[in-house]
């Protein structure tokens, strides 16, 4: 087999050296009756060419050639070929977690740069070396808030990504956390009026997302004040990190939980992405996940190591801040390279193009009779529209024109079946925006 660097004669030679008569001898500790008598029923073995054929055939069964207006937590952005070229260098791709600092300085320095970039983006003081994704980052941020406040009640906006909320529920269930959902107003922002101050008094955290799942930016300074007013922490989720190129960072939040997919990671049908937790220095010892820190060797040379490991499972076991071990290092590296390329200027320009394209699309779509904006709050590259019919029905017809239409909010908000979330990034050509508008117009003109 092409991956195995041994000839049969070498195998025999090694068995002899071991003093075994046959390979079976080495498995003698496995009770006879549990040893497989027949080969496994698996497809293959396949040659490299057949493997490529198999996956190319699968790719044909997907949405190649379709234009998609989906965002809702995963975003199509321009990616230079440079990061991918670098992360494919064996030295990065095939190395392990940098526990042995002396021969892992490459990975460690890059993580240190990643942590720095995440702090700069979020306006926070410390960031970790990555979490699995945005949903688990948000969940871990809430658990962190619980540890920091020693309170159990958590208020979470209904406008937080529905799947993020589901994950939080799964984790919260057996940790005795009480979750209360908070609705939204006509602006699409958190309904502050619905926050019962008495209840909030004992709360661990107020959890919001900005831009939220409806595409609307939350007024974080105001929300921070409310939360802090009753000793609760403000936990802010960010699903569209590119917004931070032009949108005010969540500097007032106590903990930021971010999905880094937009920072140079492919959609890849849901993962792998890169979650991030950023917070204030004073909270660092309650933070989950790996941290790289700067230090020196005996000769005073600067170097980097994984540090504050006493928070982690491999040292503290059941007392650890989290069970996370393997994280998303390779994509933290990809995001680091991506952001270094974009730089100060580039990141802002990308964000501004998103804003411009989304505003253009919104204007084009609002020209269609019966189509109007659903919420009045400020939006970045996503916005919710109200249609005269079910979005699902409209999408079914759009699909025939190779357009993947707005995300039907009805999926997660049963009362919003006629509302759809439209995402338009810098990658969307004006002509395609116009094609979408024309198609929807045609569809709506047809009598149902």
């Amino acid at each position, binding site marked *: 087999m092409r991956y195995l660097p041994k000839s049969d004669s070498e195998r025999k030679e090694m068995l002899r050296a071991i003093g075994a008569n046959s390979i079976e001898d080495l498995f003698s500790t496995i009770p006879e009756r549990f040893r497989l008598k027949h080969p496994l029923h698996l497809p293959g073995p396949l040659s490299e060419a057949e493997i490529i054929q198999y996956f190319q055939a699968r790719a044909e069964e997907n949405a190649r050639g379709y234009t998609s207006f989906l965002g809702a937590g995963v975003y199509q952005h321009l990616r230079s070929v440079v990061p991918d070229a670098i992360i494919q260098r064996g030295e990065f791709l095939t190395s392990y977690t940098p526990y042995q600092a002396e021969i892992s300085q490459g990975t460690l320095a890059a993580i240190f740069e990643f942590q720095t970039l995440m702090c700069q983006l979020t306006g926070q003081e410390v960031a970790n070396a990555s979490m699995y994704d945005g949903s688990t980052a948000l969940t871990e941020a809430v658990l962190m808030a619980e540890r920091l406040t020693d309170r159990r009640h958590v208020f979470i906006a209904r406008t937080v990504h529905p799947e993020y909320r589901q994950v939080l529920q799964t984790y919260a269930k057996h940790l005795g956390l009480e979750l209360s959902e908070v609705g939204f107003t006509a602006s699409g922002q958190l309904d502050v009026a619905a926050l019962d101050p008495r209840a909030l008094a004992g709360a661990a955290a107020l959890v919001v997302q900005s831009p939220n799942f409806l595409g609307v930016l939350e007024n974080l300074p105001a929300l921070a004040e409310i939360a802090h007013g009753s000793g609760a922490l403000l936990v802010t989720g960010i699903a569209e990190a590119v917004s*931070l190129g032009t949108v005010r960072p969540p500097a007032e939040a106590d903990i930021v939980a971010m999905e880094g997919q937009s920072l140079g990671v492919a959609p890849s049908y849901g993962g792998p992405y890169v979650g991030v937790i950023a917070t204030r220095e004073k909270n660092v010892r309650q933070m989950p996940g790996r941290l790289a820190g700067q230090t020196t060797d005996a000769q005073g040379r600067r170097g980097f190591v994984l540090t504050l490991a006493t928070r982690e499972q491999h040292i503290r076991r059941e007392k650890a801040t989290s069970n996370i071990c393997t994280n998303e290092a390779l994509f933290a590296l990809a995001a680091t390279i991506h952001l270094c390329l974009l730089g100060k200027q580039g990141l802002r320009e990308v964000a501004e193009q998103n804003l411009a394209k989304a505003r253009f699309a919104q204007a084009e779509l609002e020209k269609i009779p019966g189509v109007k904006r659903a919420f009045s709050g400020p939006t970045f590259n996503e916005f919710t529209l109200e249609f005269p019919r079910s979005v699902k029905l409209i999408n079914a017809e759009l699909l025939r024109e190779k357009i993947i239409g707005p995300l039907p909010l009805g999926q997660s908000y049963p009362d919003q079946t006629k509302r759809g979330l439209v995402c338009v990034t810098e990658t969307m050509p004006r002509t395609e925006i116009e094609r979408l508008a024309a198609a929807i117009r045609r569809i709506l003109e047809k009598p149902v």
Partner: protein
Amino acid sequence: MSQESSRIKKAGRHISQNEGLIFEKSAPGKRGFELPPLDVPPVDATKALGAAYVRDAIEGFPEVSEIEVIRHFTRLSTWNYAIDLGMYPLGSCTMKYNPRVNEFVARLDGLASEHPSQPANVAQGCLRILSDLQKCLLEITGMDAITLQPSAGAQGELTGLLLIRALLESQGNPRKKVLIPDSAHGTNPASVVIAGYEVQNIKSNAHGQIDTDHLREFVDNDTAALMVTNPSTIGVFEERIAEIAEILHSRGAFLYMDGANMNALAGITRPGDFGVDVMHLNLHKTFSTPHGGGGPGAGPVMVKTIFEPYLPVPVLIEKDGRFALDQNRPRSIGRVRAYCGNFGVLLRALAYTLAYGPGIRQATEDAVLNANYIRKGLEGHFDLPYKLPSMHEAVFSDARQKKHGVNTMDIAKRLIDYGFHPYTTAFPLIVPGALMIEPTESESKEECDLFIDAMRAIAEEAEKNPQLVKTAPHSTRVGRLDEVAAARKPVLRWKPSTSGEAAD
């Protein structure tokens, strides 16, 4: 000689300049990326969002050109060790060859480009990949049902425990505790706590195996499950695994298997056949997906039929050749992460499995062969605390070298000077000063022999010149780093102030 010259500004590795942090190369106005021209009217952010919602330029954000980015990260990469450079004998981590074709197919347009929320009828390709992988993993483990959602082994553990808890709850009592052998990996107890259980550690017997009599005492009606790693972290198969399962089942408790060491079993025996109820796999170990300096991974969970109703949503279903995601699962434990898991990792694992087919057994055989060959080669040079036959890894201790004041970490660091990555040190906890060595099937006899030579040479140095070993490594860009200082006054991000001089 040249090393002496203090004016040489290069890293220990010859031929490349030393490299500071990217922020230290930044200069206003440099750029590494340009956008296509905007084809719609520009928008003024402040007008569009309102001044209160707009940010100023990001202070200290890098400004560098493309060539500088390429050089910066290429130079950094040369300070890493990697499987592509040589043997990476980290016990329990299964650092095997990461096939290049897997990287190729994971990047195909039509796979890497797909959005997880796109309608199932334009995602059949992705769903079929997931379905095919599910079938393969169930066949390899001999289990009945599966979820691919967990992001890594630790999350797999949590998911598995939540499934056990859900089933027990449906029976009226979730129970209180989960038993964990003292040889277990740290994620096991950490996961138990998040699942709302107490950890009860149980001692291994003199052979490093679970003491079944001992176990019998422990298992009671408060016991939800036992988490066993099989082969255990000392690389030994739990010979009495069936009896262990029986003990648990007789008390209504379940057997959870941490499948991180499945590289010793694939194609040889199936957990589903020897009594395991719930288990996870680490696809970034046994199934060759790249570790990438710490991740990503994937930790699918396989279960027996009785657990199926509780699997996380969504569940992949197949109706006459078409695939769909079923969200409507009233008894599900819920989601453990967004979307369908680390698709890109799952895809690579399938590519790996397809490459071997039933031949995956040969990989397992070679992995065990290498471990035993190295064990044989080092016996007599290093202390072997547990004598039972090894499977995929061999665990020694530094007992002999301790006499000369040399410990496992010293030996590990010295190994670097011999051109190898260290083995896993100081784990499992049941072996004081452990040397945990897992070569995997990817190492040639030649590489194994080089490793044995190196280890023997170090054993000799430990006697004749312990200082040389205790101060190792001597050939790296930086020496041993001050971890205490790093933790006492943490510097966790670059600031114009904190940036010291680059190593030279």
